[in-house]
């Protein structure tokens, strides 16, 4: 557990130091997916909310990278649509995941592995819808890599949603998720903020001089905000004070995600100010011929 956490923090620090995301799109996808999947399959009651939040951040980072990769070619309906699609699938995948966990619960403590069933099924649906959209006899969007993009988005959405369920409910057990994550309406927040974390980065940085590291930093920043609210929900609805899934766990999550947000927000603002043409306090305008 401890090693896991250290490793992840290293992963996070790397880009901070050099302001680069060294892995390319495939590499980042694989790394993020592996980290997020490891956190999903650990039994929810063993893992503090902070680790799960790291998983959420990585899953959404993966999604944001996929959105960037796919919508570079122009979707015809704007960038947001594909992020919304990802979370539409994500909800179904996460519901499937918790149902599988309930089915596997009698089999032992590692029942949360079964949640991956939902993720994989959503990958299948995502791939199929990608094929439908790209096939020249059907919708014919002709975007290279759309099949893979939609598959990744389905998976990233499901994983992110599962981890958020796990943060709020403390574990992936069916009735707890239903009563704390769905019955309170927190699922609407998860839906809308996760899709923001996926599509807002590329949408906000859009332009000919868009840079990948800057885009991905925005995603981490928004995930920080998302985890902040989830921490508030957890701290307010949890019944035990101490221990995992309790009030203190929520407060730690609030502190952690607040720091993540602040660090990446400041980083993004500084980076944008450095990379924009010029930063002036005020000034007149001119027409460039």
């Amino acid at each position, binding site marked *: 557990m401890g090693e896991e956490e250290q490793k992840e923090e290293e992963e996070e620090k790397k880009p901070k130091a050099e302001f680069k995301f060294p892995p390319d799109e495939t590499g980042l996808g694989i790394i993020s997916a592996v980290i997020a999947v490891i956190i999903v399959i650990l039994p929810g009651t063993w893992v503090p909310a902070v680790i799960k939040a790291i998983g959420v951040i990585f899953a959404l980072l993966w999604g944001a990278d996929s959105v960037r990769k796919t919508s570079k070619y122009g979707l015809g309906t704007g960038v947001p649509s594909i992020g919304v699609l990802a979370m539409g699938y994500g909800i179904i995948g996460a519901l499937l995941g918790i149902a599988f966990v309930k089915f596997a619960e009698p089999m032992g403590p590692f029942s949360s592995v079964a949640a991956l069933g939902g993720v994989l099924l959503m990958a299948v649906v995502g791939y199929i819808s990608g094929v439908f959209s790209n096939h020249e006899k059907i919708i014919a969007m002709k975007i290279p890599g759309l099949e893979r993009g939609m598959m990744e988005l389905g998976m990233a959405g499901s994983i992110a949603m599962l981890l958020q369920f796990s943060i709020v409910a403390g574990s992936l057990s069916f009735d707890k998720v239903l009563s704390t994550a769905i019955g309170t*309406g927190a699922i609407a*927040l998860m839906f809308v903020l996760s899709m923001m974390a996926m599509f807002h980065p590329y949408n906000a940085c859009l332009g000919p*001089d868009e840079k990948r590291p800057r885009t991905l930093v925005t995603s981490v920043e928004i995930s920080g905000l998302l985890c902040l609210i989830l921490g508030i929900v957890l701290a307010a609805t949890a019944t035990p004070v101490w221990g995992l899934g309790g009030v203190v766990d929520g407060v730690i999550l609030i502190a952690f995600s607040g720091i993540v947000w602040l660090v990446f927000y400041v980083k993004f603002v500084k980076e944008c100010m450095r990379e924009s043409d010029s930063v002036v306090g005020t000034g007149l305008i001119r027409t460039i011929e």
Partner: protein
Amino acid sequence: MPIEAVAMLFAWMLVIVFLALIACMFEDLESDTGSQSNPNSQVQLAAQVGQVHRFFNKAISGEAPAYAMYCTTAGVIAYVLLLKGIHPLLAIPIGAAVGEAFHVIFATTAHIGRTAGSKRFEQPLYLDVLYGHLLPIATHGFMAVLCIVSIAYIQSNLGTLSGMSGLNHPFALPMLAFIWGITVGAIGSSTGDIHYGTEREFQDRPFGEGRRVVYHGKITRYAECGIRTQKDIVGFCVKYGGPCTGLTFGLIILFENWRTLVGMKLGGFLPDLQAINGDMAAILGIVIGIVIGIVLIMGNVTLVKWARKRYGPFVGE
């Protein structure tokens, strides 16, 4: 007294309509303050066609998901505070304030991100434009979000407030905030944007014609006095586009709730809440809705006919 309860029900419905009117008007004005949604494509394009501008480029997706986000955040915070026993008069504004804090954060990232993304067009990042617009955005957005969360609160407690506890809406408060957030955003972008995009953004072009493709990107950059920023636009749109948009959402909420309530009353479901009368209530609600829809269609046909007759065929080049 059941009759009083029915009267209360209608009264609360009118409160909701009033809140909806204000919410959508401020929503539209806020989107004009930040230049969100569809007209923003011209602000983005302006730098690319060589027209450096002092507009705020708030590209937070479409208005519908954006408002769904602020309202849901506000709704969740308000809901959590209500769970903790805090009075709604305090919980709802605090929730709305948190929603607006998110809004400002997203607005900053969108503006500076897009400005940095169009570096090669030599569009500078004006700090006074950045800082000067955040507060108007937050205040306008606060009004909209506050009203939407209040609507969600009233609807999720409608039965308790009016004295017939069977009528509480089954959705949780954040879910209602999400639904109305999406709707208010969809309406704000589909009606309110027109006044800003067609008229104000191209005000130095001839009135009464569609904005031709050659004009695209060449937005009006000079104001009545000095260089135009987004703040000049709000003062213009508040005279026509904003109230019209508010009216749209208000009318929708009015027709929707009114037809359901009238159906419930005429169908005999109110005030006794007998399940046996439920189907009749639903049928009457549908019939009233269809009549309203037909009236709307007739209104549009009349409007189009009038415009064609009054304005005549296109003259000019």
